[in-house]
């Protein structure tokens, strides 16, 4: 199939970017979106031009590296799918495709379609962990976890940190990412000791970089892992509960 692409090109973080048009000819409908870009890049290399820079790693939808805005859809038109798992059969021969990087003031473009997502690392550093000493591997099932809680925590933990939620949000909010990263710990017994300090620290770090939630739900439909905005509600609940807790350690 033949496609005309309109791709955001930007030489570096401080360079002025702009759109450039490319023709992608003879693309197999079985190719993934990234393989289509690989093909375009091979032709650019042959012509002595700079290839289009884009993030990618596992190419099986679990690493969270890839992700671009495709015709106004984060990760393209197929729901619950990362860009690497999107196949060209979802497009028609002769389509024009606009490919843009994620946009948010805390996710500046590094080059072409690659953005700097290190603000997500700052949020995780603030509390996305459990502080326990690791010794020998504990016996399996030594801590009982309700099945529903385990499944909900697993759903939250499926977040791959691709930032499609921020890209989709009209307010550039990172609430879905942060809620998933908070709740996959807060829902489990192991996450309880630090539940409220974690929630406050991660929410307030998130807000240093990103906007606020107006409950549009765009993040949920953009998420390649279909993570529910229920987690955002539960994060809100834990944040408010934390405001009423005194963190004084009674008796010490």
């Amino acid at each position, binding site marked *: 199939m033949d496609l005309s692409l309109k791709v955001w090109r930007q030489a570096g973080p401080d360079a002025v970017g702009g759109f450039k048009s490319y023709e992608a000819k003879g693309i197999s409908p079985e190719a993934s979106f990234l393989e289509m870009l690989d093909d375009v890049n091979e032709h650019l290399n042959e012509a002595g031009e700079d290839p289009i820079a884009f993030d990618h790693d596992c190419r099986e939808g679990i690493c969270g590296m890839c992700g671009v805005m495709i015709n106004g859809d984060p990760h393209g038109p197929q729901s619950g799918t990362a860009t690497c798992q999107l196949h060209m059969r979802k497009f028609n021969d002769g389509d024009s495709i*606009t490919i843009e990087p994620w946009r948010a003031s805390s996710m500046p473009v590094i080059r072409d379609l690659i953005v700097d997502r290190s603000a997500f690392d700052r949020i995780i550093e603030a509390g996305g962990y459990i502080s326990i000493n690791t010794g020998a591997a504990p016996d399996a099932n030594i801590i009982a976890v309700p099945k529903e809680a385990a499944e909900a925590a697993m759903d939250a933990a499926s977040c791959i940190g691709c930032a499609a939620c921020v890209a989709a949000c009209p307010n550039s909010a990172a609430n879905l990412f942060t809620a998933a990263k908070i709740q996959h710990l807060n829902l489990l017994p192991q996450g309880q000791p630090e539940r409220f300090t974690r929630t406050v620290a991660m929410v307030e770090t998130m807000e240093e970089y990103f906007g606020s939630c107006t*409950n549009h739900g765009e993040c949920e439909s953009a998420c390649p892992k279909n993570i529910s905005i229920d987690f955002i509600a539960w994060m*809100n609940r834990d944040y*408010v509960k934390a405001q009423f807790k005194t963190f004084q350690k009674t008796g010490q």
Partner: protein
Amino acid sequence: MHERSGWRQWLGGFFSSSVGLKWIMAITGIGLLGYVAAHLFGNLKVFTGMDAAGDYYIDLYSEALWHLGGHLVPAGFLLTILRVGLLSVFALHIYAAYTLASRNRRAKGQERYDASRNWAASNYASRTMKWGGTIILLFVLFHLADLTFGFANPEFHHGDVYANIIASLERWPVAILYIVANIALVFHIYHGTWSLFQSLGSASPKYNGLRRGFAAVFAWSILVGNVSIPIAVLAGWV
């Protein structure tokens, strides 16, 4: 880091963080929704006509509001407290909205997507909250000038609620303004009524479907009720 003491511990969190401000939006929103519902319920007395003594029930209703608390308190005392409360709730709601909107503008940065966004989940109501809110604020100012203070209504007589409503809404541009403003109000409260559950942290797959349904029923009831009054006046039914 994130250490607060005493009352700052919770007050600070609510007023500094966006999640806290959204909580304030939701709580004040519940207050305002309750007010809108009570306001409509009272106004429907415009349809109940007059009593045996020839007094319109809606005039008696406004008098009763003024004498709320009976002889226990001076006349107008409780109503003034309610009005001050309503005004502070409005002020908090607007303060939170303004603060959040300016934070969101900062977070969005300068660059916009070139391709038009393919909205998958948001709707007209959710994307127009800012503008709907602004229209409602301007309308409320006009509404107060029209039917509370009376300087936007040449035939205004304090206390003659029924006559004032008829005199105001008989002017068809004013009636259309009331209808249009109420449509804006209803879009705003449709998203607000659904959204407040989310902001307050009340979500469960079991009853999530009910939240949208409740919001739709509430919004439609307010729309039908509020718009029925200017239509009834224009049509000469009251």
